[in-house]
């Protein structure tokens, strides 16, 4: 708690403490996530009765002899204590790993998530290749849904009970209820294959290659994805605005002679944005970790599609990689939101 008499002097200190606490917390969270992920993929199977040889069998293919499997289990360290295995896993993430396969040593540079069972390629470069697709999808959709959702929510709140309010809230209800594989399919049928306004699924152009084509290809996925999220944001904004516009400080703002627009945006919306920011952090973090349904529906080569393929192929290193990355994004996004929180609401810094 800050002392009121020295509020200003303690604020930078309080802010710094707050930032440090949140960053440390985020790191701790990442460590826990790595443990859980490692546990799910390496410890739980062994608890469930899988022998080191059974674990190793996943790496070698059906044709391998028992001797080979035994040798691989030994090389990959499945006989070592769990702690040692986890240590090796973490070391691979930060310092890279060497895989000694007898005939030579394969260097897997950091961050090493291992090699794909299917392609034999290291996992990390594949993940990096797919990030721009997911990022493009998530950022574009986020811009649309925040702008649309918040403005619809504000207008609905200010005109509560009007035709606009009822129409937009009805649409929002549809938006949150309709799954993306439904709206996505319908949109493809209508706009791509029917009207021919948008490209069919699977179209992807890098932003650096052709920005216009990039936006044109992503337009339909953006809008479909944004529709799903905008609905929730509109409802949340409406509820928040209805609450804040009834606050005493709104009356004060009006009594000062502020124009209604300033009252609504600067005083009302500013206060209503805090819960929206929280939700946004979680949503965006989840989305950059892989917009699974959207990417699958529109056949976009992003992290979500990568995850689906990896699971279907039982490609363990790929699955682990994408899970860790997705979890990491959520942690980072909520860290950023926490820090932004302190900027938005000055009272947060001191608590």
């Amino acid at each position, binding site marked *: 708690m800050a002392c*009121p008499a020295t*509020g200003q002097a303690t604020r930078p200190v309080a802010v710094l403490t707050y930032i440090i606490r949140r960053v440390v917390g985020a790191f701790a969270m990442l460590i826990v996530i790595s443990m859980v992920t490692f546990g799910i993929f390496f410890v739980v199977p062994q608890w469930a009765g899988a022998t080191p040889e059974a674990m190793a069998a996943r790496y070698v293919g059906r044709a391998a002899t028992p001797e080979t499997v035994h040798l691989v289990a030994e090389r990959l360290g499945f006989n070592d204590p769990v702690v040692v295995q986890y240590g090796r896993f973490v070391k691979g993430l930060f310092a890279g790993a060497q895989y000694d396969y007898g005939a030579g040593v394969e260097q897997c540079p950091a961050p090493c998530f291992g090699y794909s069972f299917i392609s034999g390629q290291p996992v990390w470069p594949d993940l990096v290749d797919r990030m721009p697709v997911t990022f493009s999808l998530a950022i574009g959709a986020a811009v649309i849904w925040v702008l649309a959702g918040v403005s619809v929510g504000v207008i609905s709140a200010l005109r509560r009970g009007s035709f606009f309010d009822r129409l937009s809230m009805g649409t929002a209800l549809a938006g949150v209820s309709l799954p993306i594989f439904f709206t996505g399919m319908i949109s493809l049928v209508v706009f791509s294959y029917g009207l021919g306004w948008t490209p069919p699924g699977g179209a992807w152009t890098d932003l650096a290659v052709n920005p216009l084509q990039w936006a044109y290809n992503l337009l339909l996925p953006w809008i479909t994805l944004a529709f799903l999220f905008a609905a929730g944001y509109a409802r949340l904004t409406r509820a928040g605005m209805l609450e804040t516009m009834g*606050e005493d*400080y709104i009356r*004060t*703002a009006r009594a000062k002679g502020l124009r209604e627009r300033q009252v609504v945006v600067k005083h009302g919306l500013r206060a209503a944005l805090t819960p929206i920011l929280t939700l946004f952090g979680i949503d965006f973090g989840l989305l950059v970790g892989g917009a699974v349904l959207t990417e699958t529906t529109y056949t976009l080569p992003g992290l979500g599609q990568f995850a689906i393929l990896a699971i279907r192929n039982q490609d363990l290193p790929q699955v682990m990689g994408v899970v860790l990355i997705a979890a990491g994004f959520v942690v980072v996004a909520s860290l950023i939101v926490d820090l932004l929180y302190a900027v938005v609401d*000055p009272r947060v810094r001191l608590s």
Partner: protein
Amino acid sequence: MSFLDVKDLKIHFPTDDGLVKSVDGLSFGVERGKTLGIVGESGSGKSVTSLGVLGLHKGGPAKISGEIWLDGEELIGASAEHVRGLRGKKMAMIFQDPLSSMHPYYTVGHQIIEAYRIHNDVTKQVARKHAVDMLGRVGIPEPGRRVDSYPHEFSGGMRQRAMIAMALSCDPELLIADEPTTALDVTVQAQILDLMRDLQREFDSALIVITHDLGVVAELSDDILVMYAGKCVEYGSADDIFYRPEHPYTWGLLGSMPRLDREPTERLMPIKGSPPSLINVPPGCAFSPRCPYAERTGGRAETEAPLLAETEGGHLVRCHMDRTERRDLWENEIKPVLETQ
């Protein structure tokens, strides 16, 4: 005509249950440099009146009629945009709870600067200097530093001072204070009242103090308007109200006021019952269900609404009892009880 002249003001709210007559035919006036106290229980229409004078019901569901003249200009018929331009500049308001009435996300300085810059075309630096100056004038120590504090970093009394600084930032000619001390400690209340009195003298503004606390109006007011159920029941100088009150409701308010010059063991004399619903107000005197003297009117209290009538030199009373009877009651029954307590 007074500087502020309110004539037959009615503010009615249509609701699903019926028409709520929050303010029903209220007239009063205030001169510059003078203070009017408006006293009444919660729900008597005090705050609705003040918001109405500021034009804050415009564009809302309220039905407003009557006249509000401010410095020779009628406000009820004026456009919302015109009244907005006057708000904060020519007329300003101090609210009850400064913690909830100031925006928690902006610094105190920012909020004062904002108020000043709406009505004055000045740079941020100039406005900031003005804000620091105003904070100093309302008695905030180290204003140059505290200007960057947030409302939650202030104590209750400091916040109310900052609120006053904000209201006075454009040098308003009419200042309305709605329960300015209700949320404060008793010791701080006295400081704030002193401050308001001093500032009023300095700025020579017309001041309206709205409160349920007769102690506050006793400190500040030249004239006092006692409100009950949206109507004025008694109006007069502070001396009229405190030394020659004629309305049974005013007697009740005086009897329920804690006083330091009484024995602490004495009990207060509360007014029995609660204020009437302002929906479908029954005919007759609105106070009659709670009035200990209602039967003296011979049934008129239930059927006929009393009129506000002058009893002597600007002292107005809304009561069916005749003047000699009221004076009699006050001199022989009420005053002795209040004084011996």
